[in-house]
């Protein structure tokens, strides 16, 4: 009898923990968030560090949608984000031009980078409206698709006076970070390693609304 009680208790505890790892907010059911931001505040930030030169760049033309069930974030999260290569800015016009040329990202032939969510794991409840998790997805860059795992955090804000100043509806803020190895995406250039690093850390800060 005792082992049965122990198993039952652990099952109940684990199911309680799983259900706890989702947003505790006013909204219920499936929610879809649109990340299109005409103000260009959503951004992807990337950086390169080499002995000769360090630089940071941004890309602001982001679009896409994600959806999930409030009651089961980890198992229901799906969606796709798209970033226009043309929106990359490194602060130097000539470098921007080089980055978008066929020697680097080839914006003419591959105008978009995409991230398509495949699965979510290691969900941790940081606050009632804040989750930390790992998200596995297909990242497509320069026409090549590779699976990456990003460390992510999501904050769910119920609609209020403050959120309405940003956008109508509930807001979902997402931060995610992952590494891009340029050679994995068939990006090869003589200055990789000396002026541009092979490994590029990518950081995403985006806010979506469920009423856009």
């Amino acid at each position: 009898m005792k082992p049965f009680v122990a198993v039952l208790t652990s099952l109940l505890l684990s199911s309680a923990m799983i259900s706890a790892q989702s947003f505790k907010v006013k909204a219920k059911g499936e929610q879809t968030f649109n990340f299109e931001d005409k103000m260009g505040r959503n951004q992807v930030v990337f950086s390169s560090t080499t002995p000769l030169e360090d630089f940071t760049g941004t890309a602001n033309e982001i679009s896409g949608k994600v959806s999930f069930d409030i009651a089961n974030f980890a198992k229901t999260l799906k969606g796709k984000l798209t970033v226009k290569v043309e929106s990359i800015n490194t602060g130097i016009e000539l470098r921007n031009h080089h980055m978008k040329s066929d020697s680097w990202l080839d914006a003419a032939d591959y105008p978009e980078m995409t991230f398509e969510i495949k699965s979510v794991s290691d969900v941790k409840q940081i606050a009632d409206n804040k989750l930390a998790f790992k998200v596995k997805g297909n990242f497509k860059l320069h026409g090549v698709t590779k699976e990456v795992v990003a460390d992510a955090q999501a904050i769910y804000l119920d609609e209020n006076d403050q959120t309405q100043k940003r956008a109508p509806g509930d807001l979902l803020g997402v931060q995610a970070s992952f590494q891009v190895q340029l050679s994995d995406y068939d990006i090869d250039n003589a200055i990789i390693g000396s002026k541009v690093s092979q490994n590029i850390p990518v950081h995403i800060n985006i806010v979506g609304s469920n009423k856009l």
Partner: protein
Amino acid sequence: MNKKQKTVLVTGSIVVVASLIVWLAYGGEIFTKTQVLVEKKDELFGWTDKQWVNKFVWGLDLSLLISAITAVISAALLFIFRSKKKPSELS
């Protein structure tokens, strides 16, 4: 080297050194920039965003360009101001 040539040499050197001092004063960046990234806190979500703001940053490329132009002009002036010996002094 005559007086005019010395003046050209000193002036050229001052321009080159000044351009390097200005470069260092702007932070010693390799490339000249007209935009820089600044961090801005997002009060709603509590994280930090990066924003481009228009700001001129003098780079080493600009200093090298100025130094190169100065060197060419100085060389030309040194040639123009060279001492021309009179025919009587030639023999």
